[in-house]
């Protein structure tokens, strides 16, 4: 019986979830020092009191007996995927002294030899660790999502077209959502719980959801219509839609294209802008005067979008005309042969999309008359995670741009592209603006500088090739390739140490054998919650505090707020003191800064990167605690009265978003490209640099207009390898980081797709496979075979099998996740190599041809 007399404490503490990058607001119930329940915080406009299964299960992550509780060092010098490190307990002092000594040596020698690896579930710690890495002097970092999670090329277009890391359909006004294989608003992607509610409301309001996806996924199953498609062919579908819109229906938003894109810019025979000889800026054709004029000349009342013109003896056409002509051959009939989607379906969807865009209509919001374009196209890793990522994403994005549905009511919205700041302080503030050639430059970008204007192409300085290929917006698929053989890429050093903040990179990129070879000779210091597969390569492991045990300076980031409604800034604070010897990574970083005598440099960079203002800047004459730095961060943003103590008490600060923040495009003079002219010039430079440095790179995808190009898997038709294997995100798990959670395991045990492998019913019948049978799945690319139980369904393309999440663990230290039958590690099927990477965006391809056969019982 419950003893009331023993009850000494019963509190609810506001904080934020850290189990994915959505940053849902929490209220955590603590009784007598023990967390007994986690609920959504109804005070926050972000998730409005709701949580996903992961959020609720966080309590089990806190108290999981598999958690690392003490510092460890390995005793087995041999490193390998299955080589037990032979952990022995050491003191924190020994751990930090060992790490500091190694860091000191590397910094003296060549700081570039340090690599920082992180992941999204350490989203609050990684930004601070990045500052540490910058102060240290290394350019080398890698988020483990680079393989099967990161949007990569999608983020690039987020920057170029939406001034944002990511995008969402306008949940308040969208009426037609065309969803190319993403769970945005349904189960994963950004703001998952928040957008799931709002998309649910939009569906009740009447928004139609059409899902184009090889698999009737957790999001596609909630659609009005599911259209199965061959993986990696979304661009062909999109290009055929563009063809129908422009050539058959004549549907496009001319006013938007004229005033908000580079559609009117004149393109010469060489595919480049015609430029004003004096100002150097692109020319447009003024149909009123019948002359070419700089795009930004005063008094222009109209812009030609079509036609061919003679400009000083050169023939030129507007960019829009070039795009339209380019699309001529890409009919629905052409796309049908590639996608397997009937031409009539593509034509119908294009018509629905074009009509629902309601071009010419307006809406009045907050007294302002704005364009009303209630259609949106969403996609993420599914459609873009292919060899043809750059050009595929371009085709998908152009659907939104052609009908003028970009960052206007009803359309596709950047996730907080424009912030005018809190009413009291005008901070944080970022505004998209016009840059080179009048094209839009993001006001804020998480990894500065933003992709446009592009950095100059230079020889490889880092092991991710980003200095040579500046169109890669985030984590690079080239990193493990270059890291394994830096000499081949003329990188003049080898990585000697990995500063490893929670990323299970072995299971989140591609072929674990190849990744293991790359990392096995590197000294690795890990801040770990669990002894996962990547810690098998660690020399030192220190116990990290989980999100429920630590304070954060940046719980919120650009893509953690819903794009509409209210701004919300939260606190992430410890709801219990760190258990056992666990410590906050950020606190440990500050201690390392002192040990390395880096305080002056580190504080200077903290001041710049966190944009701390006086009087909250860090003075290197003083040593600041983590609490004080967080306190200064909050005060610098929101004023003296709203420091850390205010946030600890209130949990969330919110205020309404302005119309000009949410729907910023009509208020901006910045144009966006529908003809990516600078890709062409950049590609020429990349090609030249590659040749000069002796690197064999296929730069042919640096093109100004979209194309569909086959992936490796479309061309690998060896005998018996007749199916495509794809990976998809599953709402019950976050990447590889949550599989050891027993509550989530329970949920997954009753959902047959969670650990099973989806296979089409007719395909399964043909192969003699029944529901629940073990299957052997062999990759044509790696030769590896994985085992998974068949989840037979009509809801998958007959040429496809689908694997959820990042299961199939094998670390002996994960008592739940590493049991037989807890999912499949997709990475065994995927090769590592530049021939499997989209060069302009450095995106890792994610579809592979496999052979599937019934296996014996496990």
């Amino acid at each position, binding site marked *: 019986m419950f003893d009331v007399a023993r009850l000494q404490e019963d509190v609810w503490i506001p904080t934020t979830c850290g189990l994915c990058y959505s940053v849902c607001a929490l209220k955590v119930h603590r009784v007598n020092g023990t967390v007994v329940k986690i609920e959504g915080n109804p005070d926050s406009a972000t998730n409005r009191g709701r949580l996903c299964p992961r959020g609720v299960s966080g309590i089990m992550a806190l108290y999981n007996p598999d958690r690392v509780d003490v510092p460890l060092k390995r005793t087995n010098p041999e490193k390998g995927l299955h080589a037990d490190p032979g952990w022995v307990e050491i003191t924190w002092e020994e751990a930090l002294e060992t790490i500091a000594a190694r860091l000191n040596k590397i910094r003296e020698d060549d700081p570039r030899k340090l690599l920082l690896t992180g992941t999204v579930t350490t989203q609050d710690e990684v930004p601070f660790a990045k500052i540490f890495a*910058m102060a240290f002097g290394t350019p080398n970092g890698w988020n483990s999502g*680079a393989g099967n999670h990161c949007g990569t090329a999608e983020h690039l277009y987020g920057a170029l077209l939406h001034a944002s890391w990511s995008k969402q359909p306008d949940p308040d006004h969208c009426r037609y959502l065309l969803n190319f294989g993403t769970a945005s608003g349904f189960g994963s992607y950004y703001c998952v719980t928040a957008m799931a509610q709002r998309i649910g409301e939009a569906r009740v309001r009447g928004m139609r959801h059409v899902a184009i996806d090889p698999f009737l996924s957790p999001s596609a199953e909630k659609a009005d219509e599911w259209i199965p498609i061959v993986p990696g062919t979304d661009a062909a579908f999109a290009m055929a839609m563009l063809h129908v819109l422009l050539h058959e229906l004549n549907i496009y938003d001319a006013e938007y294209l004229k005033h908000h894109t580079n559609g009117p810019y004149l393109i010469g025979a060489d595919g480049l802008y015609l430029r004003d000889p004096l100002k150097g800026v692109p020319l447009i054709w003024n149909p009123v005067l019948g002359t070419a004029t700089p795009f930004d000349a005063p008094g222009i009342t109209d812009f030609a979008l079509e036609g061919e013109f003679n400009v000083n003896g050169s023939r030129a056409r507007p960019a829009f005309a070039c795009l339209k002509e380019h699309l001529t051959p890409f009919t629905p009939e052409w796309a049908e042969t590639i996608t397997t989607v009937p031409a009539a379906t593509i034509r119908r969807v294009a018509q629905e999309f074009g009509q629902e865009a309601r071009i010419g209509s307006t809406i009045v919001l907050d007294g302002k008359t704005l364009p009303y374009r209630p259609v949106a196209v969403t996609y993420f890793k599914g459609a873009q995670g292919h060899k043809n990522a750059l050009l595929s994403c371009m085709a998908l994005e152009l659907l939104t741009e052609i009908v003028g549905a970009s960052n206007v009511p009803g359309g596709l919205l950047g996730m907080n592209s424009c912030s005018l700041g809190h009413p009291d302080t005008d901070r944080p503030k970022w505004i998209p603006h016009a840059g080179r050639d009048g094209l839009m430059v993001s006001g804020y970008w*998480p990894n500065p500088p*933003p992709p446009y204007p592009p950095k100059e192409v230079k020889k490889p300085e880092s092991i991710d090739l980003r200095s040579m290929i500046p169109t890669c917006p*985030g*984590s690079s698929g080239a990193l493990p390739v270059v890291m394994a053989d830096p000499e081949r890429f003329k990188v003049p050093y080898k990585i000697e140490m990995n500063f490893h903040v929670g990323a299970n990179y072995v299971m989140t990129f591609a072929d674990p054998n190849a990744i293991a070879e790359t990392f096995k000779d590197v000294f690795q210091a890990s801040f770990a919650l669990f002894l996962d597969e990547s810690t098998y390569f660690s020399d030192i492991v220190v116990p990290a505090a989980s999100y429920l045990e630590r304070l954060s300076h940046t719980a919120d980031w650009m893509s953690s707020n819903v794009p509409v409604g209210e701004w919300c800034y939260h606190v992430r604070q410890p709801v219990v003191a760190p258990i056992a010897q666990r410590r906050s990574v950020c606190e440990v970083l500050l201690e390392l800064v002192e040990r390395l005598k880096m305080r002056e440099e580190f504080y200077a960079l903290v001041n710049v990167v966190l944009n701390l203002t006086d009087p909250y800047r860090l003075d290197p004459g003083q040593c600041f605690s983590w609490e004080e730095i967080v306190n200064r961060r909050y005060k610098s943003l929101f004023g003296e009265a709203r420091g850390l103590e205010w946030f600890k008490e209130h949990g969330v600060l919110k205020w309404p978003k302005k119309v000009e923040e949410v729907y910023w495009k009509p208020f901006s003079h910045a144009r966006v490209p529908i003809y990516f002219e600078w890709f062409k010039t950049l590609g020429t430079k990349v090609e030249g640099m590659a040749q000069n440095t002796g690197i064999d790179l296929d730069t042919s995808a640096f093109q100004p207009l979209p194309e569909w190009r086959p992936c490796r898997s479309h061309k690998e038709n060896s005998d018996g390898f007749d199916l495509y294997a794809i990976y998809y995100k599953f709402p019950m798990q976050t990447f590889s980081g949550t599989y050891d959670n027993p509550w989530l395991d329970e949920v997954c045990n009753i959902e047959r797709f969670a650990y099973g492998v989806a296979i089409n019913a007719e395909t399964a019948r043909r192969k003699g496979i029944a529901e629940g049978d073990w299957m052997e799945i062999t990759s044509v690319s790696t030769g590896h075979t994985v085992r998974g139980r068949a989840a037979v369904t009509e809801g998958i393309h007959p040429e496809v099998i689908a694997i959820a999440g990042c299961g199939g663990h094998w670390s002996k230290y994960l008592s739940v996740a590493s049991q037989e039958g807890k999912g499949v590690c997709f990475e065994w099927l995927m090769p590592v190599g530049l021939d499997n990477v989209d060069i302009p965006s450095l995106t890792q391809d994610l579809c592979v041809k496999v052979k599937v056969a019934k296996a014996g019982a496990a």
Partner: protein
Amino acid sequence: MRVEVRFYGFVRDVITNTAFSLEMPAGSNLRDLLSESIKNSSERLRDRLFTSSGDLEANVQIFVGATQSTSLEEAVADGLESSDVRIFVLSATAGG
């Protein structure tokens, strides 16, 4: 005029001393200062700071005192006997 120069971030591989003093003629601007810094340290620093056309790389931020500069043509200091210039070379480690 005495200028205290300090470099931060992704520069330690191209310069040995990240902090030094320079004597600059009155009226010097930031471009002059960076050129002098390159002369004083390493030509490799030029490639880290500038594009081939002489523009500042987008990941480089310069502060004169506490104020961020927006142009290389800005004066190192206005009418002061000494100045404090800090140059940050940011690196975009990792992604999303």
